[in-house]
């Protein structure tokens, strides 16, 4: 046991003295969360909008007012004629133009019918779609405020409610994703590199000629990275709760234990990688290609798995991150308990046991 702790201590020295790597390891979750939370978001906020108001009456200015106070739009430009529409789009100044025809208020009051035109910049279809949906919702809201006074005989109201994420915040889906990604990277890549480094530096030769047992070496190598990964989990959770307002609805203890489980799965993967390679570069390449890519692409957090062709759907089952992503979403966002994630948890446990067994079996007690 003393030997084991000496090894763990030595491993901590390695990590602690390589300040640059340590900084990257601990800084990565912070930057990732901040980048995903504020920069790389597919939510639309404060989109620049132009107003082309031919009516200029009470109703139209009320609508314009309603649009510009919403957090989605920012009415920056006021146009006076159709001739200005194309140049404004060409300059890329605005994403959408709200056109209100003449006699808007009059038509509404007397003809019971008003027309509004929304012109969107379709060069980015997703943004255009989202903007027109938001604008339609605001206009609908505006309309219902008017019709409240006059009772119409028939009306079907669609009342849409987004369960678990009423505001459709992107953070709800990327926080679990980033967590999977970072745990995978720190645990798998760093452990594999740490072990291969011993081979490269020749220290493995001496370690092998010592009474240390392979099992002990492997576990001792993995423990510091496990602790580091748990620090990262804590950082991510703190940031998402206090900076991004993503709630932890389920049990925190359950969430942390699942995080620990996934960390161990990733460590086992890292150990396996290290046992089949001899150079740090190869270990890094395998980790990036073999883990990073599937984790981002096939875990379901960037692209929905249901829309993928069948072979990819089948392949995604082999990606541990897919199961972890689903577990975190269920616990954190939906607030459900173990009874809803036991299947995924069992799959992860199975993968971990398999990978660990394989990597200990593959750990060479000799040089070749």
């Amino acid at each position, binding site marked *: 046991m003393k030997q084991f702790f000496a090894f763990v201590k030595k491993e901590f020295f390695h990590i602690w003295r390589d300040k640059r790597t340590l900084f990257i390891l601990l800084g990565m979750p912070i930057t990732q969360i901040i980048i995903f939370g504020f920069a790389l978001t597919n939510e639309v906020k404060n989109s620049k909008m132009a107003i082309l108001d031919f009516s200029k009456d009470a109703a139209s200015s009320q609508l314009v007012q309603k649009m510009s106070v919403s957090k989605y739009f920012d009415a920056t430009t006021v146009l006076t004629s159709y001739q200005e529409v194309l140049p404004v789009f060409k300059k890329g100044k605005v994403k959408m133009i709200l056109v209100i025809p003449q006699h808007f208020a009059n038509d509404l009051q007397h003809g019971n019918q008003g027309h509004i035109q929304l012109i969107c910049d379709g060069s980015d279809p997703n943004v255009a779609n989202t903007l027109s949906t938001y604008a339609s919702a605001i206009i609908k809201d505006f309309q219902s405020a008017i019709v409240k006074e006059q009772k119409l005989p028939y009306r079907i109201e669609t009342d849409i409610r987004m369960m678990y994420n009423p505001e459709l915040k992107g953070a709800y889906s990327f926080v679990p994703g980033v967590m999977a990604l970072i745990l995978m990277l720190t645990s798998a890549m760093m452990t594999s590199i740490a072990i291969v480094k011993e081979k490269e530096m*020749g220290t493995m030769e001496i370690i092998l000629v010592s009474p240390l047992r392979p099992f002990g070496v492997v576990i001792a190598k993995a423990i510091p990275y496990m602790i580091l990964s748990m620090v990262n989990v804590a950082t991510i959770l703190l940031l998402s709760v206090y900076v991004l307002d993503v709630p932890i609805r389920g049990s925190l203890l359950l969430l942390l234990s699942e995080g620990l489980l996934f960390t161990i799965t990733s460590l086992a993967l890292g150990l396996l990688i290290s046992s089949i390679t001899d150079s740090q570069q190869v270990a890094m390449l395998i980790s990036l290609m073999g883990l990073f890519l599937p984790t981002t692409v096939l875990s379901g957090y960037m692209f929905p798995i249901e829309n993928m062709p069948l072979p990819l759907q089948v392949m995604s089952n082999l990606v541990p991150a897919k199961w972890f992503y689903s577990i975190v979403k269920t616990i954190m966002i939906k607030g459900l308990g173990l009874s809803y994630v036991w299947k995924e948890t069992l799959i992860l446990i199975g993968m971990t046991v398999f990978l660990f067994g394989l990597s200990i079996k593959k750990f060479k007690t000799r040089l070749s």
Partner: protein
Amino acid sequence: MVKSNSNNMTSVIVNNISKKYKVEKSQVTALNTVSFEVSKGELFGIVGPDGSGKTSLFRVLTTLLLADSGNASIEGYDIVKDYKIIRKKLGYMPGRFSLYQDLTVEENLSFFATIFNTSITENYDLIKDIYQQIEPFKERRAGKLSGGMKQKLALCCALIHKPSVLILDEPTTGVDAVSRKEFWEMLQRLKAQGITILVSTPYMDEASMCDRVALMQNGKILAIDKPDQINQQFSKPLWAVKAASMYSLLKTCKKWEAVESCYSFGEYYHVVMKSNINGEEAIKTYLLQHQFLDIEVHQITANIEDSFMALMNKSHD
């Protein structure tokens, strides 16, 4: 001389060990039926040029590699079957500096002490002489030490668990002359404490410090004997030759049919003649015929390097 029947006096027995590597598509024979015995407390040297199989042999003995055929034992334990026991009894210092460069001198030493289930204080007397020389730098990281100090630290780490057999792979390669001398003095002191030492070196001059040496080339052992005995086996007359134009001298000597071999040795060429008839005068006359100036010729007794060159040439034929 070691008698193979006196088993309790024998520390290392190597019996017909062969090892082949696959390099790309061709096979390279690293070890070719190597056999020798080392008695307890002996300082046994393995001398040979780069690529002669020294490192492979040590890796087989330290249980890091499996031999293709043959068997070996250390302190009575089989290197394949009892590798776990052997790993406890062995002190091994690989050819490349293999300590943790980002740990300090003291941390390295205490790490290796702990993984071998001992402590620095427990075996301090064994490493005291060596460790005292690097102790002033114990807070320094191992990667920042000079070559000689690195080797001293590596030796300390290999010794810290009081091994009964010490295997050192080219411990003095890349170390300055003063440190090399110190290093060999340390080995003599360790030997005096009863530790069996196997050491490999590419330097011929170091071979004479061993109790016995094995000359190795192309995976084969050419000769095993006491250093001075090996020299006595050298039967042919040997001359040191020097002239003004050294390069053409080498070419001329090699062309001369009376010369068996000629190689540089310091500022002289050592010339081995095929027969005893050709004396000092014969060489001088021959060189004068070829317009050499400042000719200097005198007979010398063979040293270990000459013996090695002769043995190497013999094995080539």
